[in-house]
């Protein structure tokens, strides 16, 4: 099985390549990159006018299976990911039951192998039942295939336990993904605390609820000499603390989501009480957005992640206080990055792609992914950065997106996973 991608612009941030190259794929691997490869009897994809990059890696996805199959399944979530240009997703363990033992990891991986269209790597829970009390059998989770551990959504409030998690996972070289939130400060809150919570009459989530745990976890990471990855960073000072931690030589990395650098809390005033703007961490202020953009530019921000959180229309049609947090993101990450980071903030495509491919691969130890090089897995995305489209239909089972109706640039044309076309614009 050979596949030849012709006439596209290959962007390979790792090797600083950005030029017109053809890519030859054989038996699920990248075989060759060269100018004008001529071969007969191969399937050819014409990528003229498009960018060819390693397939995107999303390190923060909620696939909802098992437990909430009405929102998303491994099958529908991976199809949604493929439509968004992703060839690998990390699924968070807050399923029901949670991914906190070997059996749950194996179930997820087996389901993904049978029903998924792209690579799925589970993130294992850090504590049993995600209760923040007892460590999971992290060694066994690693053996079963997890790429990181996290109690995402349920921050570990006990500092001693967080310290032990960081220390213990060190011997398996597993990063600990931390959702930073002091629940005693955020309890009952539904939007950023400040102007908007006061105006709309909501309990607020102060930015300090995040920052206090960012600082704590950085300090614990130093104590434990562990590997800390802070996810969905949303505030100015969180970025500043992480920047400083990196300068101090700690093994601290982080990701941000597109909605935290595209939207601000002010959208809640514009679309009053739209529950598709109810997200945790909440949408913040312009000052926070500006600092996140700075962090992307100066590489304080390592990765861009979706925090894809599907919810049904019924759940999201409730009163704002009662509706669940979260929005879907897999199908809008790339166009939001291109429209806002590339076109508006003039951040080079190679830098954007770095945070969606090679950086996640490096941090989470996927040696054959995130790069377009001979010998690597043939996970590829082909997209046209100039093509404009209106966000309306989703492949995901859910449609809880605040970006419906938005005009964005950057259209995925093909997604190829292990040498197989898993998404093609024409077949939608």
């Amino acid at each position, binding site marked *: 099985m050979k596949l030849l991608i012709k006439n596209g612009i290959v962007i390979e941030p790792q090797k600083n390549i950005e030029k017109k190259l053809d890519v030859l794929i054989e038996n699920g691997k990248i075989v060759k990159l060269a100018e004008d490869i001529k071969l007969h009897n191969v399937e050819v994809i014409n990528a003229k006018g498009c960018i060819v990059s390693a397939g995107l890696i999303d390190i923060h996805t909620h696939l909802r299976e098992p437990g909430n199959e009405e929102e998303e399944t491994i099958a529908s979530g991976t199809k949604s990911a493929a439509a968004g240009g992703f060839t690998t997703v990390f699924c968070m363990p807050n399923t029901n039951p949670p991914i906190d033992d070997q059996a749950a990891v194996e179930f997820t991986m087996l389901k993904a192998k049978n029903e998924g269209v792209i690579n799925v790597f589970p993130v294992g829970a850090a504590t049993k039942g995600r209760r923040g009390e007892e460590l999971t059998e992290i060694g066994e989770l690693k053996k079963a295939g997890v790429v990181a551990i996290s109690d995402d959504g349920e921050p570990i409030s006990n500092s001693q336990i967080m310290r032990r998690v960081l220390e213990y996972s060190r011997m398996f070289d597993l990063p600990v993904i931390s959702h930073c939130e002091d629940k005693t400060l955020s309890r009952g809150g539904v939007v950023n*605390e*400040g*102007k908007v*919570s*006061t*105006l*709309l*009459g*909501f*309990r*607020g989530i*102060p930015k300090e609820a995040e920052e206090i745990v960012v600082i704590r976890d950085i300090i614990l990471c130093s104590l434990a000499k562990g590997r800390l990855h802070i996810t969905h960073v949303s505030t100015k000072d969180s970025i500043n603390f992480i920047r400083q931690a990196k300068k101090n030589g700690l093994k601290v990395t982080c990701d941000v989501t597109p909605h935290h650098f595209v939207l601000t809390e002010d959208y809640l005033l514009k679309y*009053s*009480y739209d529950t598709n703007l109810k997200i945790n961490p909440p949408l913040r202020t312009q000052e926070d957005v500006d600092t996140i953009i700075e962090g992307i530019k100066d590489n304080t921000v390592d990765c861009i992640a979706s925090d894809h959180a599907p919810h049904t229309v*019924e759940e999201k*049609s*409730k*009163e*704002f*206080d*009662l509706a669940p947090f979260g929005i879907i993101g897999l199908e809008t990450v790339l166009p939001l990055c291109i429209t806002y980071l590339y076109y508006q903030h003039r951040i080079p495509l190679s830098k954007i792609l770095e945070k969606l491919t090679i950086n996640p691969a490096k941090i989470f130890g996927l040696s054959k992914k995130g790069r377009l090089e001979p010998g690597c897995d043939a996970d590829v995305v082909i997209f046209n950065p100039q093509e404009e489209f209106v966000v309306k239909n989703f492949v995901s089972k859910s449609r809880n997106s605040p970006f419906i109706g938005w005009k964005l640039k950057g259209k995925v044309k093909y997604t190829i996973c292990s040498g197989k076309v898993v998404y093609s614009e024409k077949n939608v």
Partner: protein
Amino acid sequence: MTKKTNSEEFSLPQKISLKQKHLLGLEYLSKEEILLILDTAKPFKTIFTRSIKKVPTLRGRSVVLLFYEPSTRTRTSFELAAKRLSADTVNIAVQLSSVQKGESLIDTAKTLESMKSDFIVIRHSYSGAPHILAQNVSSSIINAGDGFHEHPTQGLLDIFTIREKKGKVEGLKVVIVGDILHSRVARSNLWGLTKLSARVVLCGPPTLIPKDIDKIFPQVEIEHDLDKALRNADVVNILRVQFERQLEHFFPSVREYSLLYGMTKQRLKNAKSDVLVLHPGPMNRGIEITTDVADSLNSVINEQVTNGIAVRMAVLYLLSLVNTNQ
């Protein structure tokens, strides 16, 4: 098109109207619209002194009172207002209805809409619930209090009372005392009073002053010391203490709250001698207000209740005109 009334001594503004068919909050009304409602409420109030306290203005219209929170005074006030306009009223007792069976707010509202209700008056413990209705049904929605957000008719009746007693609102020093953070009454008063250029002072412990309120209302003053706040005050609006806030650590005890923010005769002497004392009710006598203040000549608490009906009649009437115009 306006409604004809059978009464000669009773005339209503004919030319200007409200822009929206819903009343969701005073934030969304212009100064002119607020004044229109207040001016319209005046002639309605004159009806109350008649032996037959009823006009046929909204005959054939229906008003559904959808109350998700216990309320005696606001619900009764709306019901009387609607009845005095000859509208039909229906009370939805939420505890008995299908809401208890898990029916969603939108489904409940659509059911009511299918019954061709012209108005839905909603009281809900969550902010934004009336907005959900307004987006999903064609009936006119009136917010009778949503979460900590707004209680527009309470704001209007407070301002109506101030205007009636003082002849104006502009330039008056109005002190709002108590739990501003969780108060929809405070927010509606803030919007209405600032639009009519009153000088508003918010007074309460820092734990009960909402964050960034100074950014939204730069002209509003914040004072934690009640004696200082009351100096030269023309009006003081005392908010009800919610006892459960003590458990949430907003203040250490009801006793200390009462010592610091309870309105006593002695304390009221800091204000102007003709200061008006307002309270949205129901009162905790002896806690946020002493009985001698509540029953003093300065107190207009009972008149607020009477005015509430007139203001709600004006709101129903004016919104019904928006309906027919569309």
